């Protein structure tokens, strides 16, 4: 496979006419002078930098705080497209939570032979400490970011279910805020579903899973690793917009099985912890003993039912890349329905047949680490050089079970501001889902865009940007 791949253009059909959802945007763009977007983009950058909306890049010592490039052209989804997507997401997150409850209890899905026992029990993401424990409302993954890509008019695939601590929701909020400041006239032309209620929904969700629901006031906190974490801005943003404390591990302590925060006066009991640190760092007494980020005794307090941790420890098993291939089965098993959203066909390199196929087709496919994230340690066959492929082959052969592979998807493209004007660039989509007393899905989500021509890597750590994402109301 070489040369130009064909892809779905979200704004223009094959004849070059704009699709209905984009019609007004298209003519509005055409009416603007050539340098208009460039100027607007600079404005946006100044706003972001002043507000401190930055992320950290690992391994870059001089610029520890960088801006994620913001693209001023919105990505638009029609009401009907969104209805189908959100029904599929709803179905998927319910099934994943049922799956988590099952594998930490009776493991019916293993007994039924729908998923190999080894894949669960030998999985690093499976936490034996969670076996037999039931969190409030049986919800494990309260906050999920479902990564989707589009390849055709009605063709959406789920790439990943981020069930641990998905990030990026603050960009969804700030992108919208910035767009409303820069282009108020565009919002007059369209009826865009709002996203500003996300913090309220998050707080409601968190309060609804407090361990003692008879309490009228649940004390919720956001637990951050601290100011040097790459997503610190987001942690502060969420605590601020929910109106709750942003705490570090050292601000909390456990006394008689209950969690308290150290205040300027008396210790205050904490009911719900929205943690943005990984399982391994939560509690040095239960997990990594050398961790300085967590709270000694936290896990015991959790198991005693005195505090709720969101997401629950051990949810990582639900978005493990080796489990991913089984999600369609998981959906059928727990909901009795066919999956609404498709899975990308996946080769599991731990299986000899799959590995053989992958090694024969490295030029055409994408290979990912089972536990990797952020676009690190992956190979995109079609855009890789011969040498990169040869190097990757050696790595893959030496440790096949560490990898999965998928066909290269022709990601859809959206109009994007580039040096030469406006051009299509490939995008993905991460809607944010909240699961508590009900399932709440914020319309839209975060669109990530690969700013380099032809690139399919949208990760911010690899030069991707973000766009405001609009869902039009009927």
């Amino acid at each position, binding site marked *: 496979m070489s040369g130009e791949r064909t892809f779905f253009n979200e704004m223009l059909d094959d004849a070059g006419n704009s699709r209905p959802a984009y019609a007004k945007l298209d003519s509005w763009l055409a009416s603007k002078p050539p340098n208009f977007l460039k100027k607007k983009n600079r404005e946006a950058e100044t706003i972001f930098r*002043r507000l*401190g909306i930055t992320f950290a890049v690992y391994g870059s010592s001089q610029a520890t705080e960088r801006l994620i490039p913001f693209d001023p052209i919105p990505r638009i989804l029609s009401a009907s497209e969104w209805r189908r997507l959100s029904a599929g997401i709803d179905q998927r997150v319910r099934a994943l939570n049922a799956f988590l409850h099952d594998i930490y209890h009776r493991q019916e899905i293993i007994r039924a032979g729908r998923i190999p026992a080894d894949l669960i029990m030998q999985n690093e993401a499976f936490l034996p400490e969670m076996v037999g424990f039931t969190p409030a409302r049986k919800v494990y993954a309260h906050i999920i970011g479902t990564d989707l890509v589009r390849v055709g008019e009605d063709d959406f695939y789920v790439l990943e279910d981020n069930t641990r601590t998905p990030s990026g929701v603050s960009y969804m909020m700030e992108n919208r805020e910035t767009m409303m400041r820069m282009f108020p006239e565009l919002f007059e032309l369209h009826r865009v579903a709002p996203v500003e209620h996300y913090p309220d929904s998050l707080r409601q969700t968190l309060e609804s899973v407090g361990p003692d629901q008879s309490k009228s006031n649940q004390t919720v906190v956001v637990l951050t690793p*601290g100011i040097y974490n790459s997503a610190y801005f987001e942690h*502060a943003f969420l605590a601020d917009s929910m109106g709750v404390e942003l705490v570090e591990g050292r601000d909390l302590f456990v006394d008689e099985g209950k969690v308290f925060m150290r205040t300027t006066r008396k210790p205050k009991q904490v009911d719900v912890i929205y943690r943005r640190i990984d399982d391994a760092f939560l509690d040095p007494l239960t997990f990594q003993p050398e961790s300085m980020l967590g709270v000694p005794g936290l896990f015991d307090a959790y198991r005693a039912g005195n505090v709720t941790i969101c997401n629950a420890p051990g949810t990582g098993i639900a978005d493990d890349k080796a489990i991913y291939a089984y999600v369609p089965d998981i959906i059928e098993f727990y909901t009795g329905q066919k999956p609404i959203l498709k899975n990308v066909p996946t080769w599991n390199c731990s299986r000899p047949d799959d590995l053989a196929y992958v090694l024969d087709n490295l030029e055409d496919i994408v290979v990912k680490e089972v536990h990797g994230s952020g676009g690190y340690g992956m190979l995109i066959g079609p855009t890789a050089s011969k040498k990169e492929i040869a190097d990757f082959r050696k790595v893959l052969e030496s440790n096949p079970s560490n990898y999965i592979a998928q066909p290269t998807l022709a990601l859809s493209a959206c109009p994007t501001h580039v040096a030469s004007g406006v051009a299509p660039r490939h995008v993905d989509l991460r809607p944010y889902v909240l699961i508590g007393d009900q399932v709440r899905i914020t319309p839209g989500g975060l669109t990530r865009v690969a700013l380099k021509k032809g690139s399919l890597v949208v990760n911010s750590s690899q030069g991707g940007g973000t766009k405001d994402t609009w869902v039009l109301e009927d």
Partner: protein
Amino acid sequence: MLGRTASSLFWMSRYHERAMNTAKLLEVAYRTAIVAHGGQDSEDDWRFALLCAGCAFGYQEKIGDVSPKGVISYMVFDKENPSSVRVCLETARNNARAVRTSITSELWEAINTTWIEFMDTSPQSITRDRLPEFLSWISQRSHLFRGALLNTLLRDDGYFFSQLGNFVERADNTARVLNTQYWVLLPDNDVIGDGSMDRYQWTGILRALSGHRSYRFAYPDAKLTAFNIAEFLILRREMPRSLAHCYEWISGSANDLGLFYGEKLPSLTMADQISDDLANTEMQDIYHNGLHDFLNDFIIQNNNFAGQLSKDYNFA
């Protein structure tokens, strides 16, 4: 409020105040070098800045010979000097970042923009002739910080902690500047010598504490005397950098904090005590008991107050 939040607000203000004080000391060194010595560098002027900022030892260890270039680089840009403008601004910003949710966006933008613009300035570009302009930019940014704080912050516990940090630092700075050349402020100096050397030193001290103009209004005959200068900077409550003024503010904030929490803790009693002592002291008494001892004692008491405060309110 988290104890760590209280601590961050306290230190955010302290470090911003310190950045401005360091800049001010350099401004005085630069000016005195030009005015008093007609452009001839005198090591003493620059050493004065190092001594007041408590940087003399660190400088000696790291750089050695006192030169304008060395002092500017050490006191403005050095990453290892805990009192350099750079480190102060960075620490202030890190503290602000840690409590981003407890401060207003106006305040955050003031702090963040200062840091971004400071980091956009290359140390090589700040040559001697560009120094005054750059230092005055730092002062202005500090005033903007304080203005944003006073104009936008809710008057709750967070505000009181930020005030305490600000004035503990300021009191410390004033006491150190006075102590560095306490002998030129002894009353004997009013009668001996022709005073021309003292005049430069007196003006330097007044300038370092932003008091060279207001002094003339506080003492209508406008004559510079050691006695009046010392009284002005220690006991005159209308002088915003005097020890008495700082402690009037500190005891006010400490009392507000006590009311806010409905509880009188030991640090509050200490603040009242120091404030009362300053209000009930005359300059003659201070001279009588020894200016140097008085200043040394004050620096220790001020430190003890900050320590007690952090104990009382669980600073992390």
